[in-house]
């Protein structure tokens, strides 16, 4: 499978008056064509900042990509000028966000917001852009698309707005769709609709998805591969059908065991003690050490590296240090 996105050693730091916050700290990530990969982590893990780095939308002033490469096929996005990056955004890579209620411009009609992106990237005239917009709205499930394009966002529910966002993101047939917590703000029944839609669309359009989420359930609905982040670093990477049965990293394992299930077989939830370390005072050794139940001396002194365990799995933990790398 050809690789579409290849991130190497990405470091996105925030420079504050007193300290430097390493929001993303040396992330390597590969995404193949047509593949859906989930980036999982709790708040502050750096997953959202990774996605904004790919889009070149790291908040400024303060945030900056200090190191690393982000290769989209054979272009290094970190080296593109702002003007060139504008040609990539919305066309090659598009993004949908967590808050559908605030992500659409309240004073422009749905049609206007769809049409502008189509005319901008595809150089078509307005009339055909309008036609395309209606077609897209129908694809994402609006039966009254002709009416919807004249409506303003506040007339639509959260689920409908997220559909509009998806239509907008898919309008230029992007190679990569970054979905940052696309269903977190939605009710479960609406979430199910949106997940269904995303699943069908990416098949149809052959688009790769980078799914950013904290919800392990959503991950297993959509993704083929899971990457777990903790405190700015990737701690584990695994195929979807292995990670829940056999998590390697103690953090991943804790995360999975912390979530109550719908079948209710667990009597008492596992809980990871403590809190995520504050990003301005990270420990010297393993960043998870203070919360880990398998911690030993070396973890406090030395930083573990992300290590391949098999060709589909890797983990950042000393417990697996003596494993032979399997090629």
């Amino acid at each position, binding site marked *: 499978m050809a690789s579409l996105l290849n991130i190497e050693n990405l470091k996105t730091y925030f420079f504050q008056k007193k300290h430097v916050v390493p929001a993303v700290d040396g992330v390597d990530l590969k995404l193949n064509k047509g593949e859906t990969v989930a980036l999982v982590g709790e708040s502050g893990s750096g997953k959202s900042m990774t996605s904004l780095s790919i889009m070149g939308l790291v908040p400024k002033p303060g945030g900056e990509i200090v190191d690393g490469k982000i290769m989209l096929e054979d272009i290094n996005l970190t080296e593109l000028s702002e003007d060139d990056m504008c040609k990539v955004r919305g066309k090659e890579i598009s993004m949908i966000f967590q808050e559908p209620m605030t992500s659409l411009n309240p004073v422009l009609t749905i049609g206007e917001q769809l049409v502008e992106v189509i005319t901008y990237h595809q150089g078509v005239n307005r009339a055909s852009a309008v036609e395309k917009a209606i077609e897209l709205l129908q694809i994402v499930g609006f039966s009254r698309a002709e009416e919807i394009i004249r409506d303003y966002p506040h007339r639509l529910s959260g689920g409908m707005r997220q559909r509009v966002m998806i239509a907008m993101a898919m309008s230029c047939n992007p190679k990569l769709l970054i979905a940052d917590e696309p269903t977190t703000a939605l009710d479960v029944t609406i979430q199910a609709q949106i997940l269904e839609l995303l699943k069908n669309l990416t098949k149809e359009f052959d688009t790769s998805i980078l799914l950013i989420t904290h919800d392990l359930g959503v991950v297993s609905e959509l993704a083929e591969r899971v990457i777990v982040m903790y405190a700015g670093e990737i701690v584990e990477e695994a195929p979807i059908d292995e990670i829940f049965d056999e998590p*390697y990293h103690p953090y991943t394992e804790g995360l999975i065991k912390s979530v109550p299930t719908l079948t209710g077989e667990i009597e008492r939830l*596992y809980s990871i003690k403590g809190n995520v370390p504050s990003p301005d005072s990270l420990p010297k050794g393993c960043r998870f050490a*203070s919360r880990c*139940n398998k911690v030993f001396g070396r973890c406090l002194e030395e930083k573990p590296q992300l290590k391949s365990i098999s060709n589909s799995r890797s983990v950042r933990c000393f417990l697996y240090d003596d494993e032979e790398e399997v090629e």
Partner: protein
Amino acid sequence: MTLPEKDISKNQTITSPDINLEVKQKPESLWRIAFDKFMKNKLAVSGAVVLIIIIGMAIFAPLIAPHSPEEQVLTNRLAPPSAEHPLGTDELGRDTFSRLLYGARVSLTVGFVAVAGIISIGTIVGAVAGYFGGIIDSILMRVVDVIIAFPQIFLLITLIAVLEPSLGTLIVVFALFSWTGTARLVRGEFLTLRTREFVLAARTIGIRKGKIIFSHILPNAIGPIIVTATLQIGYVILAESTLSYLGLGVQPPTPSWGNMLQAAQDFSIMLYAWWYPLFPGLMILITILSFNFVGDGLRDALDPKRKN
């Protein structure tokens, strides 16, 4: 390939405290944080320093002033700045610098006292309207609407003309007709705060209404109130000087920055004594500017949404 044991034991104690709290010497109250933030704002700090100097000069005017503000030397009218009269003299030969110092007393007194009144009335009306809502709120807000519909200066001019100008009248009139902005602000704060969860929590605990208002809601609304008070002082000083300039404020011979300028409108003064209108105006400008800087700095420092 054998992997090490990955079983996680189940006996996590729930009473394990979250361990990641930074150890600090002293708990930092929000006031302390606001103070630190304020001190980092250069404009605000310089504004505060200038204000302290001006206030000091007003308080110690009798010690600092080289002359009595009312001492007339008719042979030395409209003298340019000199060692004897650092800012020159006026059309009656009085020392401008001394008169400015005493004028500061008037301006600052009117500013502080009137604003104390404005804030008291505005906070009470706003708090009552915002906490109780309903019909009380509607009535109070309609009264506010009516007062706000008048251009302030028209009300002030009319009232003062009707009531005879004096320091006391000025203060009372300002207090009675400038509280509306504060009332709206406080009402808005109360409306949002009263539905906040910590206020609901206080209600479920059974805290009395009065205590909820004064101990839970008001302290959290105090930031915007302080900011508006600071800005209001500047506004009142400006309005007072305007009225005095029009001849409706503090009456001569008592010096005030505004009435000093009233005398300076004369064509020949403008032609031959440019320094005379300059200094009172600059004093007003600097004072108001300082209050605005401080107010702006306080707004940033007291706004909990602005971190860093």
